[in-house]
Every structure is written in C-alpha cells, then in structure tokens.
C-alpha cells in the first residue's frame, strides 16, 4: 500500500484542539499529500487525521496531538496501522457496524471530513455542482413539485415545508426577488450549521443556486454571524471559486440562468436569526422583527418577494436533486422526512455532530450514538431546541425524533442543539439560565417579551435563592401565557418553553426549592450547607487551611466545625477533604 492522502480535520473544533501544528508537521514531511478537511462529527476525538492508501484503505485516527505526531509519521512511513488510536478503519466490522456509525445516515454531512472545503475540485469530484446542472435542464415547476414530494421541511426551527415555501415565492409576481441563507445560528448549544459551512461550503451555495432557479431570483445573500470567522473565510473562498468557474454569475451552464451570492456579516444580535429581523439587518437597520403577514414570500428584503432558508435546509437540496425525491422521502417518518443533524453537548460522552434519520428515538441518539452520560452518571434531561425548546426527562427517552412527537412533549425540534444533563444538574437553574438568555437577547420591542420575561427571571432567581413563595409556580405559568401570546416574533412566543417544560417534568424540584428550601442537585448555592461529620473528621486541618474565608475552626487532630455565618459555600472544604467528612446538603 502507498499512502495517497492524509487529511487533517481543520474545522474550528479541530484547530482549537491543536490541529494546526499537526497539519504543519505532517505537511513538512509528506508535502502535498496532506490536506485540510472539515469535521466528521467526532469533535470529542479531535485532532483527527485520516490516512488513505492507493488500495482504497482508510484509517481515521483520533486524539492526534503534537506529541503523537512524530509517532504517527513513523506509522505512516512504515505503512502500519495503529489500531488503538483508530476511530474508524474502513472494512473493519467493529467500526463499520458500531452503533455510532450504523445508526447514522449522512446526507447533509456527506462531505464533512471527506473533502477539502477550500478545494472546488474536490467538491466536484464528490459530485458537486452536478445537481445544479441537472436542475437547469428541467423546469422550476417540476423542481418545486419534487421538493414538495421529498417532504423536506425547514431545518431552521419552524419546520415549514421547503418546496411549499419556494412555490409561494415563485408565485409572487415581481421584477426582483431575493434568496437568503440564514447562517446566523445562535441557539446555545447549536453548531451544526457552522460545521457544514466550515466543512462543505459549496453544498450550501449549490443549494441556494437551485432555490434561486426555483423561485426566479438572481440574487442571493448569506447572512452569517460574525462569531464564525472560519466559516466566513471558507464561504468567501467558495463563492469566489464558484464565480471564477462559472457556477455563479451570468448564464450558468449556458442555460440563461443568472445567480450571484453575497455575504453579509451579523454583529452579535441573536434576534437577527429571526427572518424578518435578519432582513432588516441586511438592509442596514437595527435588526428588529416585524409583524407577519406579510410573509417574506410576498414582501421581504427591500419589500421584494424573498425566500429564506436555513443552512442545513440548503445543504440537503443538491442531494435530493441528484438522488431523487423518492429516496429522500423513504427516510424518516410519515410527516418528517429525511435526516436531521444534531449537535450533542453537555454531559454526554461523544460530543460533536451526528446525522440521524427522523424517527430515531432520543435514547438511540443519546446512548447508542452519543455513548451515554459522562462518568457514567445518571441521565436527567436533554434540553432540545435551545431557548425556544424544552427539557425532556428520562421517562420520555423513547419519543421518536420527529417534529410532531417532539412538539407533543412541549419541546420543539428546533435547530438541532441537544444539551444533555446529568443527575447533578438543577432544572430550576437550567430554566433560569435559558430565561436569562432570552432577557438579554430580547430586542425590547414587545412589552411582554421585554418585561414579562424579566419578571419570570426574577421569580426563578428568587426560587434558586431560597426565597420562593408557594404561589410562584402558578405565577410563572400565568406570565408564560402572557409572554407567549403578547409577543410578535418567535423569540418571545417560545421563550417560556424551557420554564414550562421544566415545571411540567420536574415540578418536585421546584417544590423542594420553594417549600423545603433545598436544591436536590446541590447546585443552587444559597440553598447549600456544608457541615463536618465529627465521626469522620480526623482533624487534619486541610479544610481549614483551604477555606478562603477562614470559616473552619478546630484544633489539630480534633473534629473541626464550619461556622455557618462565615461560610460562602464555595465547596473548597468538600473538594479537599480526604476522609469524606464534609457533608454537602
């Protein structure tokens, strides 16, 4: 076997894990054989290096830090395989049939970690820009019909059927129409879109061009958040490559279709992910949401008919065109077709991105693919759908992942962030955290979103400080209803969800905080107390020496005592005690 290519995962996750020096060391040794690639999803094993041979072999290594690089170079030179480091070996059943791999279906992520995102040639070699060519040989009407039949629904959160959206935009009569790609991905815990933009930017551009043809637009914008500099850089490269090669521009494929794409950077405002706010931001205004209707399909950017879709939605499009709507519709459930990319974070073993067929259960995603809970702790809840979503408890782990089933739990599919929480997480604290996010990100236009959420936050804060009243739960539910009904955009309409679902599924935790003044998960500091078990204390003085406020008293070799009035509940004594004598309650 001859090594033909060496690929180093150089998405943000890989670079932050130290991939750049690995890339350099390998390049110094093997020259042009070494290439950058995107993230295959196993962020928990970055930096990742794949070694490909002329016999079709492929070995993917994980945790290749600077120290391991020298050894890896020797392994490559000797044409060996180091199984202990491998995260995947082509043809080896223990990897190919692992639950992690066999339960995933890669459509959106088809090229991630496989091609060099800065190479147009590699995208083309993977079948890139073929879908646009095929599209331009047909009619917009047929394309839209196929898209409707594929069952693809918007991946930005609301799940509106994509083909139908295109149909409305096509039906709008106008001299000018716009197409927008929403790359403002702001949900805490979501990074699917970043992964796609960093790893396969051309697929998004191609999806946009196809959509442009469908609705009759020649101008596309990508609104991408400024927090994603690497995604912006790779998009810029891809756009200029596509322009130079004639995939964007005038008279594409000689079919008389013109389409261009321009990038617009956000500047740190979560609400700009909401489509009407986003359009105001592109126009150069404050990004305030506006009332719908009129929908963007009638009056959007500069009051022209506009179609806006999410990054992942667009990345699906070329695949559907090339493989046919039937194949796409064959995956998933009756009303939720295809796949969904999720970002797994929190207390889960395998953090990263995964792509699964709709209808898979949460249990399969979190335990079979995600590897379960870190440190083998107990699962408590998964927060799905970000600040608009909810917390789903263990009893609902067998709920299938599809739009309708998730809605029934009180959460939503959302954009794809899954924050996994273990038994040490306090659900009241989590609810407070998400609400705090909404309070900070509310644009302030609607009174209930601005003030109602703040009121709810005050109540939650009070509860976590042990000052909750028995009427508080009811008060929260009442305010939630008002915020939901009194807000113009999705931000406010869905803001109470994390609070409501945590009350629904973890009411006992609220009650423990309010009535017993206890935080069952020992998270809320005000409700904690540290005491010393005199039977176990050996009087070693370690806690006393570590206490930052000198709240521990006692003589050497005699049981110590914590003076409660002085204690700031930092937990240092608990952490340092070697005899389990400090009790946290």
């Amino acid at each position, binding site marked *: 076997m001859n090594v033909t290519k060496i690929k180093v995962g150089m998405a943000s996750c890989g670079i*932050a894990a130290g991939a750049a020096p690995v890339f350099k060391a390998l390049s110094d040794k093997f020259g042009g054989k070494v290439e950058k690639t995107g993230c295959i999803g196993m962020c928990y094993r970055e930096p990742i290096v794949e070694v490909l041979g002329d016999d079709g072999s492929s070995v993917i290594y994980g945790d290749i830090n600077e120290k391991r690089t020298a050894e890896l170079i020797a392994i490559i030179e000797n044409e060996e395989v180091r199984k202990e480091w491998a995260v995947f070996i082509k043809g080896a059943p223990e990897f190919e049939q692992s639950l992690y791999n066999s339960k995933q279906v890669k459509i959106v992520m088809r090229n991630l970690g496989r091609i060099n995102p800065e190479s147009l040639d590699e995208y083309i070699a993977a079948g890139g820009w073929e879908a646009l060519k095929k599209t331009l040989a047909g009619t917009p009407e047929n394309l839209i019909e196929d898209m409707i039949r594929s069952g693809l629904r918007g991946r930005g959160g609301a799940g509106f059927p994509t083909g139908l959206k295109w149909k409305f935009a096509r039906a709008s009569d106008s001299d000018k129409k716009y197409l927008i790609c929403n790359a403002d991905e702001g949900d805490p815990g979501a990074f699917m879109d970043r992964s796609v933009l960093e790893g396969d930017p051309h697929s998004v551009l191609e999806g946009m061009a196809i959509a442009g043809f469908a609705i009759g637009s020649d101008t596309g914008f990508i609104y991408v958040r400024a927090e*994603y500099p690497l995604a912006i850089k790779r998009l810029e490269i891809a756009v200029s490559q596509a322009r130079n090669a004639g995939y964007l521009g005038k008279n594409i494929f000689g079919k008389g279709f013109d389409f261009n794409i321009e990038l617009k950077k956000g500047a*740190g405002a979560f609400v700009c992910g909401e489509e009407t706010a986003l359009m105001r931001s592109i126009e*150069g205004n404050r*990004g305030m949401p506006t009332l719908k209707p009129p929908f963007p399909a009638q009056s959007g950017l500069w009051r022209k008919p506009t179609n806006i879709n999410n990054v992942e939605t667009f990345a699906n499009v070329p695949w559907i065109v090339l493989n046919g709507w039937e194949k796409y519709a064959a995956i998933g459930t009756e009303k939720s077709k295809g796949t969904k990319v999720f*970002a797994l974070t*929190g207390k889960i073993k395998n953090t990263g991105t995964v792509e699964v067929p709709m209808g898979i259960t949460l249990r399969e995603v979190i335990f079979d693919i995600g590897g379960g809970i870190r440190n083998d702790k107990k699962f408590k809840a998964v927060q799905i759908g970000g600040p608009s979503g909810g917390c789903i408890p263990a009893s609902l782990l067998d709920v299938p992942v599809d739009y309708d089933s998730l809605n029934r739990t009180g959460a939503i599919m959302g954009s794809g962030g899954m924050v996994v929480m273990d038994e040490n997480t306090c659900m009241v604290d989590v609810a407070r955290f998400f609400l705090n996010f909404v309070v900070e990100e509310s644009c302030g236009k609607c009174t209930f979103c601005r003030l109602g959420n703040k009121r709810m936050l005050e109540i939650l804060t009070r509860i976590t400080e042990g000052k909750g009243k028995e009427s508080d739960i009811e008060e929260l539910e009442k305010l939630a209803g008002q915020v939901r009904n009194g807000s113009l955009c999705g931000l406010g309409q869905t803001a109470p969800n994390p609070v409501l679902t945590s009350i629904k599924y973890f009411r006992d935790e609220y009650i423990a905080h309010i009535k017993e003044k206890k935080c069952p998960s020992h998270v809320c500091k005000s409700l904690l107390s540290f005491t010393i078990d005199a039977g176990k204390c050996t009087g070693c003085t370690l806690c006393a020496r570590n206490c930052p406020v000198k709240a521990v008293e006692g003589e050497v070799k005699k049981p110590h005592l914590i003076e409660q009035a002085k204690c700031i509940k930092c937990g240092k004594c608990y952490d340092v005690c070697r005899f389990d004598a400090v009790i946290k309650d």
Partner: protein
Amino acid sequence: MISEILKKYEPKKENLLSILHDVQESSGKNYVSTESVLEIGKFLGMTRSEINGVMTFYTMLSEEPRGKYIIRICVSAPCHVAGSVSVKEELKKVLGIDVGETTGDGLFTLEESACLGVCDIAPAMMVGKDVYGGLDGHKIKKIISEYRSRK
C-alpha cells in the same frame, strides 16, 4: 485609512454593517470613532444618530476604544455546565480587569459572549478571531502570555 475602506463599497445603506466591521477592525482599538461615524454618514447619506442607533443594537460594535484583542468568553449553557464561571474568574485574575474593561497596556478587552457555537470544546473563548476550547487555569495563562509576547 477610512477612505480606503469606503472605496471598496457602493454608497448604499445595506453596506453599513460591513463598513463598520471593516473600520472597527482596522482601527487597532476595535472601535469606530466619532470622526469615522461622521465620515461614514457623509458617504452613505445617513445622520450620526441613525448610525449610532444601528451601532448600539449590535453587541460587537463599539463607539469606545477597546483592546487590540477582544477576548470573548462564552457564557451560554453548554459552557456554563462545563465551568465557564471559573474560566471567567481566572481570566479576570490573569488580566487584572473586570468584564467590560480594557487592560492598561491596551492589549485586551474582556467581554462575555452569547454562544460561540463551539460547544464541543466547552468551556470556550475567542481571542480576536481565534477560538480556544477545553479551557482551564493553566491553558488560560499560557494563551494570554502568548498574546502578550506577540504584542
């Protein structure tokens, strides 16, 4: 310098955010000065208060001079769960400043950020355009001293 930036753009309001980003980046102090605002206003046919209105809406734009490097510490849920609070405390200690302040040498400004979208390596922060993850006290000291010696 500003005129160089303005040359790249057509005088349309839709270019305001891009221009503000560019001016801020080239300022060396991560801000858009009043003189710049006036000049941009002249170019786009916008009043100073119109531009200020836009600038105050977006958290990444500043009218006050800031450090050469903005340190954005992610305080969203996954980073919170992973310990961003102690990372923030450590940063404050190492830099000797509070959130929102700039170090005396004008090198760093410490800011809190909404989700940076690198939750897979939480707790995370950005220094300028570079992302750092898996942070702890030791790593923070190392990163900061690297930037200090870079100057």
